[in-house]
């Protein structure tokens, strides 16, 4: 098929090596005199041009995982152990100055609420120029030209005029486009998008999803998408990792996880989506709520809410059960179903 070369290119040769490799990440926060692992042994990989969605309820550690990758975990939280390789660099061993260079150039992040990430008393154009000149020695004029180009690329109408506007003068969708323009200004290898469309209306969300697809295809950017919205996941993700209580519960390709989920938590999440249910019939519920970090069960963390819980789930943390080359679930029930208990 002509016309879509960018999508297949990164699959070949040296690009095979993942852009992001996270191994056994543990990030802790103080709790009750000790420290609680909010992220507790998470491993992830994302290749160039690939979108990995990290899903789960609030309080599962999705955002802290993302912040850990760029070493943006707010104090007193800290990455306690594990390794993070971003475009071949060992993120956890970098000094503060080196890390600043890595952020932006190798990995950039956009957030749910662009208003809180933008400076209200500076024009949006100046903010992007500043971001560019923080990383590169370039003239103000050149940086301005590049900013306007970026604005055009992310679909901001009247890009030249918008350069001089303040954040409050822009709609939510335009502010998110400004954030994406800023994130793209250094051509990052990895873009972390934390609930990028959650605050947006559905028609604007569709525009931003299209933009993110375009970014991935054109620049072979690896994208870590964090969201609780499984519709957004289905639209954008290639692979999915489902997090529960600081750990990955299940991972697989988009089709595997959404069409053939095996972990009871994934199954419960999908069954509780109203648009998957038949009107009039009760929605499937997952009883209770995610326990707070520090109160997580010692066996399987989902044991207290699981409808198919076994005795051993309360005592023994489950091992990964491989279900295909790409799908794995950490679950004793799945182990039994697979005859591997």
């Amino acid at each position, binding site marked *: 098929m002509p016309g879509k070369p960018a999508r297949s290119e990164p699959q070949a040769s040296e690009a095979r090596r993942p852009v992001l490799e996270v191994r056994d990440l543990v990030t802790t926060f103080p709790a009750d005199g000790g420290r609680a692992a909010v992220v507790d042994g998470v491993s992830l990989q994302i290749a160039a041009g690939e979108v990995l969605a990290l899903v789960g*309820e*609030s309080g599962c550690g999705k955002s802290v995982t993302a912040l850990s990758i760029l070493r943006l975990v707010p104090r007193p939280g800290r990455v306690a152990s594990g390794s993070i390789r971003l475009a071949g660099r060992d993120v956890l061993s970098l000094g503060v100055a080196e890390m600043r260079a890595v952020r932006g150039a190798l990995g950039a992040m956009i957030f749910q609420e662009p208003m809180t990430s933008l400076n209200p008393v500076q024009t949006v154009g100046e903010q992007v120029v500043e971001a560019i000149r923080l990383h590169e020695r370039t003239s103000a004029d050149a940086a301005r030209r590049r900013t306007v180009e970026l604005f055009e690329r992310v679909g901001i*109408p009247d890009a030249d005029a918008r350069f001089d506007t303040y954040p409050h003068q822009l*709609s*939510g*969708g*335009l502010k998110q486009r400004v954030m994406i323009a800023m994130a793209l200004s250094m051509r990052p290898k990895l873009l972390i998008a934390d609930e990028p469309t959650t605050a947006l*209306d*559905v*028609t*604007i*969300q*569709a*525009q931003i*999803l*299209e933009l993110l697809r375009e970014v991935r295809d054109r620049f072979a950017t690896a994208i870590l998408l964090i969201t*609780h*919205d*499984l*519709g*957004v996941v*289905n*639209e954008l993700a290639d692979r999915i990792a489902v997090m529960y209580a600081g750990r990955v519960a299940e991972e697989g390709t*988009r*089709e595997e996880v*959404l*069409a053939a989920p095996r972990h009871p938590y994934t199954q*419960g*999440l*999908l069954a*509780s*989506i*109203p*648009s*998957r*249910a038949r*009107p009039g019939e*009760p*929605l*499937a*519920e*997952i009883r209770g*709520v995610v326990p707070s970090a520090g109160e997580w069960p010692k066996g399987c963390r989902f044991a207290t809410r699981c409808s198919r819980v076994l005795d051993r789930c309360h005592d023994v943390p489950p091992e990964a059960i491989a279900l295909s080359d790409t799908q794995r679930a950490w679950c004793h029930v799945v182990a039994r179903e697979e005859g591997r208990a």
Partner: protein
Amino acid sequence: MSAAAELPRSETLLRVEGLRTWFPIRKGLFRKTVGHVRAVDGVDLEIRAGETLALVGESGCGKTTVGRSLLRLEEPTAGRIWFDGVDLARLSRAAMRPYRQEIQIVFQDPLASLDPRMRIRDAVAEGMETFGIGADAAERTERVAAALQRVQLDPRQMNRYPHEFSGGQRQRICIARALAVEPRLIVCDEATSALDVSIQAQILNLLHRLQDELGLTYLFITHDLGVVRYLADRVSVMYLGQIVEEGRTQRIFEDPRHPYTKALLDAVPSVDPARRSAHARLEGDVPSPSNPPPGCRFHTRCPVAFERCGREEPGRYAVADGHARCFLEDPASP
């Protein structure tokens, strides 16, 4: 009140006719009014007793203002709000009081609508005291316990404070508080939008069960079309202060007539892994409600607009089981 007698008591619990709620834009030293934000600009709605009507639309379309206007939390500029045969828009503050009991509202953010220093027993009992429900404190406590039980909370927790509960539990508290005064209509303004999907399922199931048990009528204000399809009997789609389409839920989803309804449905992400279907059919943003476009309000973004749309305002044309404000549905149109 003679006007009240004109509308017979019927199945219809609420009928809104030509509702306008405009907010003045003031400028300068003397706060001179220089224009109006036409948040709600000629809205008609009808809800039958025991039914769920969803009012959907994007932020800024005026759907929240509609809900607040029904309770006169915002003062309507014009129009009629027939509730059970009485025009609420014309009532004095004092005469409105009993209707504040009959219509309750549940908001998106339960933490913001609960006083953090108030025990939940007092939060739930507050409305009962206001409206003189329950003979004494002991009876009210009993009623608080019953209301909490109805929303599946443990009445023994009634002496706790809001921060001791999870987000889903807090929304249950808000629902218990609304139920405690025995309303007939509950306005749910994005009541499940801030919740995780598993918790949202619990609350939606609860609302559904309460409707069956108590014969409640719901006006469900939301931007979440998945929830609408699951829960609503009828849907009114709002754009820039007006209802652009109205009809039975299934028909709206399967055969939307207004180009805005179509675009809205097309933009909804699919959760079916066999297809990816979110399409951005619309460009740009919603125009400002202080200066709505002439003609059809949607014509500036409409993919099928023609010359007449920018010139003339479309009326309400009957379609299937409802109506649409679009010239494409005008029977007189060639």
